Structure formats: structure tokens, C-alpha cells
């Protein structure tokens, strides 16, 4: 178990991580989700011992490891920019972490072979990294990180530089690989869909703050705050200011809908994900939003419509091909039964998980 207790990291006058508290369970897959500069890499370096916290403590399996050098900890890390030894073969690259621990050549061969099978690079073992494609090089780097039994494996956007299809394939394989081991994995990504597909637990990060942490599906469907919902939405979640008054939620003098009784009167920010705003009325709870289309992006199987309504920018994501001209007036339907309500401090007010 890895515990971060009130971990703060400052560099000069800047705070990179604000009092992070995280507990990563044994054998767990943990996703650090956030945009660039959210603090994902810094948090990983703190976990690895590559950086020392300015204050706070890091504990591993009941032992305080704050400030313990990375060499003394059983940690592996994979970076976005794959790093391999150019003068070594793929076999030697993967085997390198095993060379320092004195294990027999037979066992090295077996371990490297198993890892290469898993990563589908068995046929490349005699080649040098420069003779491999980018995807194969990254798989070599990942195989090296995983060949020894590390207690903690940190993967910093390892798929970001790979082709789309390869990313899809490795995304499928990775959880399977880790399932067979009893290590703690932390995986940084900027992509909400990637986080969802991995499952496990997700920490939503925003500008150095851990804004949410819990089982991935739960964080997605019941974010604790507006920030968390924004971190966990791609395309961006639609937001608008509403007023709850009596039994109505009022967006403006034209658009209102029935309110949940449990919500106190007052001003709220609503959040509705793009796939709950559709060009056709498919749900009886949907309310009509009249606006002007900025641009419609049709991908052949889905339509993403960017439009302006009542002073806000909205995005709709729907199945099928729904053509719209730029500048065209259009009505889109927001399924408000799927909306989140955030109070003025950004705190989530929905009582039960709206299945968004």
C-alpha cells in the first residue's frame, strides 16, 4: 500500500502539488487524470522518490519512505518519450533491470521471453531499437519497466506518442498484464476515455490539486465537484447558470424544467455531458435549447455539433450523421435528467448518482 499524506511540492514560489492525500491499495490500477500541467508527472516523481516532497509524508507498506532514494525503492517508470539503450538489442534492453540483481541466465531468458510474448515483440529480440517502429520501441521500454517484480510501476502517458490503433490495442492488453501481478500501478493520462476503459481507480487532477479520487466509474458518474466533472469530460461538459425556485429549475425566461424537491432554492451551475444533448428529442425529459450552429463535425458514425445558445457555447455528441450548416438556427435537446447540479462553490449537489 502506498500512502501520500498531506504531500506538498513547491518549486521556488510556485506550488506544484497542494496537500495531496492518496492511498493506493496493493494490486490496484490507479489513473491520474488531468490536462498537461495538472501535476500528474510531479505526483509520480514524488511517488517514485525522484522528487522529495516540500512537506508531508510518503509511506509504503507501513514504512515511512519520505526522502528515500529511488535506487533503494523497488520502482519502475515508463515515460511518454520512450527511452531505450540504442546500442543494445531489444533482448538486452528488456533484460537490463535484471542484470543488477544476480539471477541466473536461464531465468533472465525466461522472464524476457515471457515479457516479449506479452508485448508481442518476441520476433524483434535480436534487433536494435532503431530498427523498430515507434510502437515497438515503446513496448520494449514498457517490457523493461515490467520485467522485474517492482512494487510500484509508474506509467506517464506511455501511449500518448503512439498511433491511434496501437494505442487501442495496448489499452486492451495493459490491464491484462497487470492483473497477473501484485504491484501497484499508477498511470497518467489526459484522456477521460482511456481512464474509463482501464477502470480501476481514478484521481482527477486540476492545477496541482487532487480534486477527486475513487473507483473510476463512480468518479465519472458522480463527480464531487464541477472541476472533477470538467477534468473527466471529453468533449468538454456543457455548463450553464440556473436558478432553482420552488419546483422549477430556470435556465432563462424561455427554458425551465421540473426540479428535484431535495435541492434547496438558489443559484446553481448545471453540467450536462455532450452525449446528453442531442439533435433529436429521444427522451421525454429532454428540454429544447434553441441556438445557432457554429460548426458541425460529422465523423461518419457520430456528429459533434458546436452551437451557441443563450450566451453559452454548447457541444452535442450524437450517433449517426446529422448535417448542419454553420450559422444555421437549430434546436437541440438536453436531457436534463442527466444533469449535475453544482452549488456556487462548485460542490456537487446531486443526491444519488445521475447515470451520466
Amino acid at each position, binding site marked *: 500500500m502506498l500512502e501520500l499524506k498531506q504531500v506538498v511540492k513547491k518549486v521556488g514560489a510556485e506550488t506544484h502539488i497542494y496537500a495531496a492525500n492518496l492511498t493506493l491499495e496493493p494490486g490496484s490500477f490507479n489513473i491520474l487524470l488531468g490536462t*498537461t500541467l495538472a501535476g500528474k508527472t510531479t505526483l509520480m516523481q514524488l511517488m517514485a522518490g525522484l522528487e522529495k516532497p516540500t512537506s508531508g509524508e510518503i509511506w509504503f507498506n507501513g514504512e515511512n519512505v519520505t526522502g528515500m532514494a529511488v535506487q533503494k525503492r523497488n520502482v519502475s517508470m515508463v515515460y511518454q518519450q520512450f527511452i531505450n539503450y540504442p546500442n543494445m538489442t531489444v533482448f538486452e534492453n528488456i533484460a537490463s533491470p535484471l542484470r543488477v540483481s544476480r539471477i541466473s541466465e536461464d531465468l533472465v531468458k525466461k522472464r524476457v521471453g515471457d515479457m516479449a510474448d506479452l508485448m508481442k515483440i518476441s520476433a524483434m529480440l535480436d534487433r536494435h531499437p532503431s530498427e523498430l517502429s515507434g510502437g515497438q520501441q515503446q513496448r520494449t521500454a514498457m517490457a523493461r519497466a515490467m520485467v522485474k517484480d517492482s512494487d510500484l510501476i509508474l506509467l506517464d502517458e506511455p501511449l500518448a506518442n503512439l498511433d*491511434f490503433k496501437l494505442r*487501442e490495442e495496448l489499452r486492451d492488453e495493459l490491464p491484462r498484464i497487470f492483473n497477473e501481478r501484485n504491484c501497484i500501478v499508477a498511470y497518467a493520462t*489526459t*484522456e477521460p476515455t482511456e481512464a474509463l476503459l482501464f477502470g480501476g481507480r481514478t484521481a482527477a487532477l486540476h492545477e496541482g490539486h487532487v480534486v477527486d479520487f475513487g473507483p473510476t*466509474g463512480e468518479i*465519472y458518474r458522480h463527480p464531487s465537484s464541477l472541476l472533477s466533472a470538467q477534468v473527466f469530460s471529453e468533449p468538454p461538459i456543457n455548463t450553464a447558470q440556473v436558478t432553482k425556485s420552488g419546483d422549477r429549475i430556470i435556465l432563462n425566461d424561455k427554458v425551465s424544467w421540473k426540479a428535484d424537491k431535495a435541492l434547496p432554492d438558489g443559484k446553481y451551475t448545471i453540467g450536462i455531458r455532450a452525449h446528453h444533448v442531442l439533435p433529436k428529442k429521444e427522451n421525454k425529459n429532454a428540454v429544447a435549447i434553441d441556438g445557432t450552429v457554429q460548426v458541425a*463535425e460529422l465523423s461518419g*458514425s457520430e456528429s459533434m455539433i458546436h452551437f451557441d445558445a443563450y450566451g453559452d457555447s454548447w457541444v452535442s455528441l450524437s450517433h449517426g450523421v446529422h448535417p448542419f450548416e*454553420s450559422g444555421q438556427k437549430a434546436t437541440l435537446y438536453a436531457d436534463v435528467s442527466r444533469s449535475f447540479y453544482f452549488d456556487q462553490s462548485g460542490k456537487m449537489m446531486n443526491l444519488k448518482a445521475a447515470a451520466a
Partner: protein
Amino acid sequence: MAKITLSHLKHSYYPNPTKSEDWALKELNLEWDDGGAYALLGPSGCGKTTLLNIISGLLIPSHGKVIFDEEDVTDLPPEERHIAQVFQFPVVYDTMTVYDNLAFPLRNRGVDEETVKSRVTEIAEMTDLTAMLGRRASGLTADGKQKISLGRGLVRNDVNAILFDEPLTVIDPHLKFQLRSKLKELHQRIQNTMIYVTHDQTEALTFADKVVVMNVGEVVQIGTPEELFETPQHTFVGHFIGSPGMNVLPCEIKNGAAFLNGSKITTTNKAPKDIKKAEIGVRPEYVTFSEKGIDAEIVKVSDAGRFNIVDTMCAGQSVKLLVQEGASIPTGSAKLAFAPNSTRIYSDGWLVREGGAK
């Protein structure tokens, strides 16, 4: 602006190509309409950059012609082709202001300052750079710099086409989304011929009216995003486009019909007698759980938010299906049905046309 015709185009980097693999670009014929938005899509090494370089004039093809409107430009150098190019990495003059960066291609061609001013103002407004015109380019973020590159590509109104070579690679994912729709909007306003090269299906499909899908030096399909999704002409297109890609399942053929583990599968087409490597192609979007159907075992359910990706083992093969958020998913055993209008037979990778001919 111009219509672009590629006629019997072929290219090899070897002086005497003999084998099929010697060709970086296999024979290709296509016409791009004036003012259209096109994409060249394919994995690394598929030949898309070779093709782009031939169009821009950086490379002279070993065979065939490049024609702009009626003019054969095959042997013309890049500067005489009037093409604007936006590259993967932003190319900006750091010491110049944003204004001067945008004005550069015009001033280079001796355009008078008044015209320069009106064009730069217009383009800056379109690319959201108005507020930054007086600033030095060096202080901008990567997406700001790439917007300058985009703006510079759009500023001349005498170009035949604008080529984009993976222009969003260095852009942060959440900003990618903004720039992508911006580009689409710009195309609709400017109506110039635009060619967009990428390995990213989302970028290609959302930007282009027509997409050229390439694999190992060969064009495998040219079509609208909808055509590529609905009727892939090759299993490669089915796999490469869509996420997850099309299920491609080796099958048996009896009397022109496809069978999986003895169960007949209804398809839109019939297999020819001389079929090679018979496969069924069906997208995960068109596989459903049903009362009757082929037996399958649920292997894994992945929650993708809007939908679930369900991995099954069906007739000894891996079959994926997409199930909408909130819909129920059986556990253990289930039966699968393939939508007959979206299930097709492929021979040696290629879609078998109605009537059986390839």
C-alpha cells in the same frame, strides 16, 4: 484555388523497382474538387507523406502526372505551385510580432501594405489572434504558435491548395478539440481546397468531406466518412476506422453463404466460387444480444462512459460489440445477432461486391 488531378501516379525511391514492396506509392488516380476538404489517412509508413510531398513539389514522382486545373505541374518546383503548407511543428519567426508573422507570405510577394493589413486583420479575427497581433511570437504557447502557422497558411488568397501535415500532433488534447473545430469552420468560410494528412481517424473523419485511406503504399478506399464507416471496401478500412474497429472473422463458405461454426450468417453479399481467405466483417455497432443467434461467452465488459465495449468469444473467435450506456448486459453465456444489412463477406481482405465479382 484549383482542382487537383493525380493521374497514374506511382513512386519508388529505388531507381529500378521490381517487387511490389519497392513502391512507396502504388498506382493512384484521383481527382480533388476545387474547394473541397480532403484527408489522407493511414498508419505510419503507408505512403501518405510521399503523396503529400509529390503534391507540394518536394518530390517528383517516378510515374504519372500532377495536374492543377488543366495545368501539368508535375515538374514545377514548390514555389511555382502556389501551395501553402502547415506542418506538424509550428514554424514561426520568434523575433517578429504575430502581425508580421501573418503578413510574411504576403510581403514576400510584394503585396501592398493596405491589402496586407486588411488580410491580416481578417485572418487574425478568424483564428482568434486579434488580441495578440502586437505581441512577439516567441512568448506564445504551442497552440498559439500553431494558430499562427494556420493563419499564415490561410492568409494568401491566391493559393491553389493548403496542405496540412499532422498539424495537431504537438497540441494538448483539450486544445486539439478547439483547433480541430476551428479548422473545420475556417474551411467552411474560406472554401479553399484543403488536404489534411494524419494517422488520427478522428481528425480525418471530422475534417474531411472525403477521406483517402492508405495502407502500404496503396489507396484502399476513397470515400465520405459515412461510406468508410458503413461500407468498408477492405478489412483494413474496417479495422482502422472505428474504435474499436470492425470484427473480421474467418468463416466457412457453402453455396455462396457464410457460416460461423456451422451457423449461417446473413450477409449483404454472396461469396464467389473462387473466394480466397473468406472473412465476415461486421462492426461492433451492428452486433447485438438477441434471443436467437450464435452462442457466445462474455469475456470482458469495458465501460467507456457513453457505451460499453463487450468482448465475447463467439464460434472460437473474439467478437466485440457496443452496448449503449444503461442497456442491460448479460453475464456468462449469451447469443449474438449480426445486423444483416451491415454484415459482409470479404475475399482476401477486399469486399466482395454484389454478384460476386471483386
